[in-house]
């Protein structure tokens, strides 16, 4: 999974660098046509497998979401249309949890972006021990999320943890809302900043030194070089990193489940899905929750991809 965004970012950026074609709208040559056909044939097996393993379950989940279907009452199913969706969307719990999820998503992704950028900068500029720096930065990302969540839960625990001792307080972190949020977001940031910084490092390598040097010669200061040269050139990589982290963060489950079990108003939408589907065995209602989460993810992805499109067009020099 990690490889895809990295290469994706590079690919997109490269397309961005190519000179605009002289006549982009002419009919395709026969060579281009056959190349395109070959391309489709080459990816056909992968597309088929993807459809088999993803389209069927998604379709089944949508079908389930339109039924009254509870595993505990196997003889009581019926088609209920959109009633399950009405029950979810009409409940204030869904909106409360959606807000919680968005707060956690936005805060953790923003912090990760800033820290990830700094880390990527350090890794890019490291003159000696580059390999050591890069692999040590990756350590938190290599730790399983549940393990990381437990580790930080124990660390912040007033009886077993070291954090209170370090800060000289006697706080019980998981008994209040904002402090629970703090620990959850802290855990997320600690764990996934390395992922962000790796994607951004790929972005840094895209910035040609010549351009930066030219700006320096022209008298641009460090801030101006960052603001007007480096960040614009890195934009595709930044967007890819943001997209992947936002989608991941939106579906947050493990950290919350381990640290607060959703208490203190920290519950995310995935936790409602788990409770309805796995704990209450209500397949109809639970599938409606899953489909709605899926829809949210699609909206986020769509918004980002839209953002890309315009950016690529601008880079190509086409009018938006």
């Amino acid at each position, binding site marked *: 999974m990690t490889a895809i965004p990295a290469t994706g970012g590079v690919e997109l950026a490269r397309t961005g660098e190519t000179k605009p074609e002289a006549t982009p709208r002419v009919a395709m040559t026969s060579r281009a046509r056959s190349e395109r056909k070959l391309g489709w044939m080459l990816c056909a097996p992968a597309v088929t497998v993807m459809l088999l393993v993803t389209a069927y379950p998604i379709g089944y989940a949508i079908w389930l979401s339109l039924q009254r279907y509870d595993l505990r009452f196997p003889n009581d199913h019926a088609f209920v249309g959109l009633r399950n969706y009405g029950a979810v969307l009409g409940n204030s719990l869904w909106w409360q949890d959606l807000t919680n999820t968005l707060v956690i998503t936005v805060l953790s992704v923003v912090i990760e972006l800033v820290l990830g950028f700094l880390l990527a900068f350090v890794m890019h500029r490291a003159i000696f021990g580059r390999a050591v720096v890069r692999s040590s930065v990756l350590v938190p990302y290599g730790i399983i999320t549940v393990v990381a969540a437990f580790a930080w839960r124990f660390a912040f625990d007033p*009886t077993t943890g070291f954090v209170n001792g370090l800060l000289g307080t006697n706080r019980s972190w998981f008994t209040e809302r904002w402090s629970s949020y703090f620990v959850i977001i802290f855990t997320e940031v600690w764990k996934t900043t390395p992922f962000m910084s790796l994607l951004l490092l790929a972005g840094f390598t895209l910035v040609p030194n010549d351009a930066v040097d030219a700006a320096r010669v022209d008298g641009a200061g460090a801030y101006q070089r960052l603001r007007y040269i480096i960040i614009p050139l890195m934009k595709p990589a930044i967007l890819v990193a943001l997209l992947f982290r936002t989608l991941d963060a939106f579906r947050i489950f493990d950290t919350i489940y381990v640290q607060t079990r959703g208490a203190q108003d920290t519950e995310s939408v995935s936790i409602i899905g788990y409770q309805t589907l796995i704990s209450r065995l209500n397949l109809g209602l639970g599938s409606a929750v899953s489909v709605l989460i899926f829809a949210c993810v699609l909206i986020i992805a769509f918004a980002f991809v839209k953002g890309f499109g315009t950016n690529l067009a601008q880079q190509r020099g086409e009018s938006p």
Partner: protein
Amino acid sequence: MRTAAALAAAALLATGLTACGGGGESGAPTLKWYVYHEPSGAFAEAAAACTKAAGGKYSIKPVDLPNNADEQREQLVRRLAAHDGSIDIIGMDVIWTAEFAEAGWIKPFPASEADAVSKGRLKPAVKSGTFQHKLFAAPFNSNAEMLWYRTDLTKDPPKTWNDVLTQAAALRKAGKPDQILGQGQRYEGLVVWFTSLLESAGGHVLSADGTKVSLKQGPTEKALRIMRDISRSPSTPANFATAREDDGRLAWEKGGAAFMTNYSFVWPSANTNAPDIAKNMRWARFPAVDAGTPSKVAIGGFNLGVGGYSKHPDLAFQAVSCLVGEKNQIVNATKGGLLPVSQSLYDNKELTDATTDATVDGKTVKVRSFPYADVIKQELADAVVRPQTPYYNDVSLAIARTLHPTKGIDPAKDAKRLRDAVTRALKGEGLL
């Protein structure tokens, strides 16, 4: 992409496509007993003993489930919803009976076996295995919370929750350890506490037939007021809202606490980890709500059921009758520390005289394993069963969600909110 995969997994899970291993059978059938892994080996010993007693009619093979009850239920439900015929005997938490029986995942006991496995057993334990007047699960082991205190701090153990509060306040004033430990996290333990308080105050969560909400205003308010007052007491630790049974045990062994409501596992643990505290540690009946009325605690423990799709139900019922027999109950108690369900065993010498090794100042000493047998026997005889409804999980979720955090309870208002939430839960509709 990852979402799609997650959805795929969820859908697969829902259809119950989990593979089930079929065993080759030759001669006597092997009955598979799905139960959590018992670390002392008491369950394995019982299985071996019953296999031997069957004289070649069947053999019993324990299959390990996770240790956490929620995870056990998840695994079992997935298999049972897919009609897994390889599940013959199931180790069931006392709260699952109604749900499993309603769905057809367990079979009712035939009259003769039902009599055999309920004769002389604790009434609440038998009730926990009964649904719609039929026995669906045989009592196997039992448990209930007691009040633990220390003789170096308290001469006369508190009888009511009010006594707990006043005695703790006095200890606090005197600068002695005064903490009150309990279970305040948003999970099943909170439901146990609430049910015990409510029943002690004379109320019930559901009507007698389990189909309608009861929760009368008077007793419910009384129970909620105690929960709030305990949670707000300066003697209750700040992390009460996240405390579970094991957090209580750890804090107790550190020595800052005067009172703790907890299960009997804290006794052997304190003797091993904190002998200085254990030597003054005593037990009393779970505190009452009103001074005149003894407390009623929510019963815990495990029952054994026979899988609804088992290929050998008759043999499985015979096997269960053997597994829950008194000899095995004694092994479970002396080896694994699991309390029996046969009332008479609480006066049996094998149990009352049983000892465990504990290390004090580097020397091994013998400590009685069940010094509290008298107290818990009384408590279990008067114990109550948590709401018996196929919607138990929904009801439990509704109670825990409405009452957590207990510090913020407003008794009059929350009694009404609770009634609404449980009513919704019993309909099985909407989010909880």
